[in-house]
């Protein structure tokens, strides 16, 4: 039954958010709360010789100054969390516990926490802490870094190999009638959610044992719980993580364990709850980022456009305490039917902060390079860019040979062409003008892997006819509260108004981190299972109750509709949920349900697809580029809620636009300090940069991903957009810009060279 699913329901938490009633991590008020301010490293490489905290300690209101010398000891981070490799080459996160040693690996690394009775006093005292170092020259360039690694897999996943060669790409390239090799470079970018990182840590004694509560900006409640428990040698049950609202994450806030651990250390030391709110400046050093990349794309093709070889080699960078590799070949490995396919990933370890996943990790910039190279090949072969892609359309996954679970990419291309007016453009570069502006059209393919994990939920039906469904998933602005409420309503046979969905608390039935665009496909089926189990419990009460109109009925003959259990064959015979419970003198029935992927994962290759078309306007005299139109057509399975889905894609496309035209964090090439440290200098698209976007879904349910038929939509919007815009800039100007972001200086430099 799908009454609520697919409906354009208003966000369940919209009112809370616009009235300020939604409580974010930094907003919890605890009695006796103290405030921590973090002192960060002023050098990028070396060892702390001494920390002089005398002046800070003398400041009124200061309760403690934690450094590596006096902070409580922490157990090291485990190698893995679940199946995810945390540390080591190809691992997810920074493998370093805070304040445990004197080593400095990057500028901005936390070195001390000053705790005081007010935020202002803590901040002031933090400026009085003097740190001296034994400094060494930092390594800051990818090309010359001494420590280079070639991780075998991304995050230890056997399905995500990072070094692959199928067929003989080198020989096939050498033999190819048409060959093209290009280098694409992208800048470091930061998530910069509006809500910076924050944690409140609170230690208590419960039943004679230590108990830690963390209010943390996280999209991985159970991860923070497990890591904190491990670090402090506590049973998992003695750590409680709370986060009902995340003010944006975009790939950050998932695997950041040092910030909550710092707060926990500080709280332990002063014996009071401690809040640490990070400054915007710190977001450029402690919150993760997308590494810069240097990608070499080599394509071999026949003169009529059949790809014979594809080699995609990526260089990215990680810190010296992280092994994260930006997996740029994610599209190259599966998008086109290429007999000879190779890709490599090399990670340079630098004295720069630790990278992390960022919306479309690998796909966003790797897809940009691939789809720009395809465009260059189309130009070389004098083929229409769409025709070149159709010519190499993959009917099954070229790397694994598995069939797609569902793929309607041809429809995406066709619809996108119609939306943008592709056929009406003059395909010759530099041929279209509007006043003083050059005009261009570009397109790109987009995709995102459609993953699914295991999750659990609990459904509770109360005697008043209301229901509560819960799972330890997260609301990161993705609309989780809203769509799981819709799914719950359908699962329980209740109108949406009578259903509440709660999340954001590690005490709830476990769900994985919110990331990788898997949440709907992961938590959705668990929600349905929990609802089903709760209804079963209710049915069993009814059929055993002599006073029930359903007494003695076969369970299979009963259906749940609009808050009633009734006979399928005779709907008038039945009663509402509340009546059953009230007669049984039960306040509620409650049941858990779990769901996990089955054998389909081995049989099919699961991906979402899409096509993005862009029209740009370029003022060549000043290098200014504006996007006139952006059209995305997406094949993402069944859509749960069109407005929230559209918002995900709109946000993703806007973020892709930002990465293409303006987002960039640079680090000083000599000191490794970020020279972009605020939102005035880190440019995210303003409304004036963001055109009206045409966004359409094909809405073809995926027959294999689970009964909802929904694949993820969180990241696919970010992918594809950069190449569509970059290719449009070429069409407008005749200039191939291969360095993101495409700020005015880049175009002016290219125009001056030409």
């Amino acid at each position: 039954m799908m009454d609520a699913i697919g409906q354009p329901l208003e966000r369940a938490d919209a009112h809370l958010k616009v009235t300020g009633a939604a409580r974010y991590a930094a907003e919890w008020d605890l009695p006796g709360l103290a405030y921590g301010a973090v002192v960060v490293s002023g050098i990028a490489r070396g060892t702390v010789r001494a920390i002089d905290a005398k002046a800070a300690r003398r400041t009124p209101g200061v309760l403690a100054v934690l450094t590596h010398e006096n902070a409580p000891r922490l157990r090291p981070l485990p190698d893995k969390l679940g199946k995810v490799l945390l540390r080591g080459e190809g691992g997810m996160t920074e493998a370093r516990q805070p304040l445990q040693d004197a080593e400095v690996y990057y500028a901005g690394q936390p070195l001390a926490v000053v705790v005081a009775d007010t935020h202002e006093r803590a901040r002031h005292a933090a400026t009085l802490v003097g740190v001296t170092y034994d400094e060494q020259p930092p390594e800051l360039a990818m090309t010359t870094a001494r420590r280079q690694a070639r991780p075998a897999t991304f995050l230890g996943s056997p399905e995500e190999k990072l070094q692959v060669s199928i067929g003989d790409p080198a020989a096939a390239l050498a033999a190819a009638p048409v060959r093209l090799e290009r280098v694409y470079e992208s800048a470091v970018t930061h998530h910069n959610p509006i809500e910076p990182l924050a944690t409140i840590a609170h230690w208590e004694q419960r039943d004679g044992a230590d108990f830690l509560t963390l209010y943390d900006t996280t999209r991985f409640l159970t991860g923070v719980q497990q890591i904190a428990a491990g670090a402090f040698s506590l049973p998992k049950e003695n750590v409680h993580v709370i986060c009902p609202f995340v003010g944006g994450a975009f790939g950050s806030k998932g695997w950041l364990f040092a910030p909550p651990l710092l707060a926990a250390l500080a709280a332990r030391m002063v014996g009071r709850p401690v809040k640490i709110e990070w400054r915007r400046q710190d977001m450029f050093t402690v919150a993760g980022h997308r590494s810069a990349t240097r990608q070499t794309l080599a394509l071999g093709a026949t003169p009529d456009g059949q790809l014979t070889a594809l080699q995609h080699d990526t260089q990215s960078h990680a810190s010296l305490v992280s092994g994260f590799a930006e997996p740029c070949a994610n599209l190259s490995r599966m998008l086109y039917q290429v007999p000879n396919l190779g890709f490599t990933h090399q990670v340079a370890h630098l004295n720069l902060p630790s990278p992390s996943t960022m919306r479309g990790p690998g796909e966003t910039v790797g897809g940009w390079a691939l789809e720009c190279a395809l465009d260059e090949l189309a130009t070389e072969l004098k083929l229409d860019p769409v025709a070149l892609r159709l010519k190499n359309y993959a009917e099954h996954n070229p790397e694994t040979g598995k069939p797609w679970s569902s793929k309607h990419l041809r429809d995406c291309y066709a619809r996108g062409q119609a939306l943008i007016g592709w056929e009406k453009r003059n395909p010759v570069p530099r041929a279209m003008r509007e006043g003083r502006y050059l005009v261009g059209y570009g397109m790109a393919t987009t995709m995102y892997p459609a993953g699914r994990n295991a999750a659990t939920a609990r459904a509770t039906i109360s005697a008043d006819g209301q229901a509560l469904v819960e799972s330890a998933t997260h609301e990161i602005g993705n609309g989780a509260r809203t769509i799981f409420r819709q799914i719950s309503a359908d699962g329980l046979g209740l109108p949406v108004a009578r259903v509440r969905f709660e999340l954001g608390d590690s005490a709830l039935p476990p769900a994985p981190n919110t990331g990788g665009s898997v949440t709907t496909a992961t938590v959705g089926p668990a929600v349905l299972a929990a609802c089903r189990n709760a209804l079963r419990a209710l049915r069993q009460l009814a059929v055993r109750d002599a006073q029930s109109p359903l007494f003695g009925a076969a369970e299979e003959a009963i259906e749940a509709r609009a808050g009633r259990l009734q006979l399928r064959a005779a709907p008038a015979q039945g009663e509402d949920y509340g009546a059953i419970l009230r007669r049984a003198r039960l306040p509620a029935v409650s049941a858990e349900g779990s769901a996990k992927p089955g054998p389909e994962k081995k049989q099919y290759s699961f991906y979402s697809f899409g096509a993005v078309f862009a029209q740009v306007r370029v003022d060549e005299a000043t290098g200014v580029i504006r996007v006139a139109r952006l059209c995305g057509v997406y094949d993402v399975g069944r859509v749960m809620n069109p407005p929230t889905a559209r918002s995900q894609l709109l946000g993703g496309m806007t973020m892709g636009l930002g990465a293409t035209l303006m987002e960039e964090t640079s680090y000083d090439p000599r000191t490794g300090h970020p020279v972009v440290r605020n939102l005035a200098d880190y440019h995210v698209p303003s409304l004036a940069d963001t055109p009206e976007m045409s966004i359409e879904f094909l809405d073809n349910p995926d027959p294999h991903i689970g009964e909802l038929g929904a694949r993820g939509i969180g990241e696919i919007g970010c992918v594809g957009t950069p190449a569509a815009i970059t290719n449009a800039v070429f069409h407008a100007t005749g200039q191939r810009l291969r360095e993101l972001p495409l700020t005015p200086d880049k175009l002016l430099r290219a125009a001056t060279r030409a």
Partner: protein
Amino acid sequence: MHPFQYQRATSTAQAVAAVAPEPGATFIAGGTSHLDLMKEDVHRPSRLVDISLLPLKQITALAGGLRLGAGVSNTAAAAHPEIQRRYPVVSEALLTGASTQIRNAATLGGNPLQRTRCPYFRDPAQPCNKRAPGSGCAALGGINRGHALFGASDACVAIHPSDLAVALAALDAVVQTTGPRGPRAIPFPELHRLPGATPQVDTTLAHGELITAIDLPAFAGRSHYLKVRDRASYAFALVSCAVALEMDGEHVRRARLALGGVAHKPWRLPAAEALLVGEKPSEKLFRAAADAAFADARPLEHNAYKIPLGRNLLVQALLETSGLQALAGPAGTAFAASVGGLAGTFPAPY
């Protein structure tokens, strides 16, 4: 941030008296620049003297020109009908600056006194002669994409970020002040200084000298502002350009040109101005002026792009001011002044 005293000034005299004797004391108006720098630990004032309640919020007529009180908000000035009509360059410069919220708080006195956006200046962990004299200039050999082409020194290559200041320089505005030594009038082009060996000093104001008003002299010509930035709105200029043109029939009688984003102060272009006088506007003439304007530009490692950008921008601004090309939007609006306009289908829906 460091502890500080806060007091509200009740009169201009009292404001001056409160700041002048105390080396660490400063005025605060809208606070949009000053507070950021305090939170960055770049400014550590011992005392803030709040001048936001002083009666400096009037815009009055003045011998053919206008007197703008130093406490007038950027928003109010930009919307003032006489400024819109007679000095559109001022409205355009103001409206391309910052955001609506910031402009509502920002004041005309504070805006020209905002400090450089050089990222090294704003990060106490890095050397900067402007913040910590003698510590060195990190921008010189660092990331200097946003830095100066003209008038820089070995000690400092920072630029002045204000848009309004560029317009005021082109109009030869006059800054009215009152200070420990009484009132004086400073021609706007003399308000800011070049860094030389003392880049910590931005202006020629004495400590405790309060700006009370900015005078716009009589002007009967056409004026216009153009700004190029890394995004369509809410960004500082890469390069900007203010033009004030007075005509004698078909010929230029007087031209005043100033660039933003290229120097430690709004950069007037006397050589280019001289080339225009007595001539009939044409693209060829404007190109020659632009070439003259950049003849002595000294680019750094990452900012050479500002030369072609600045030249083209100057030509465009002259074409639009002289009427040889249409403005991109109504005069006196951000649409007229923002190169590239709004994203979306063309023409922009203003």
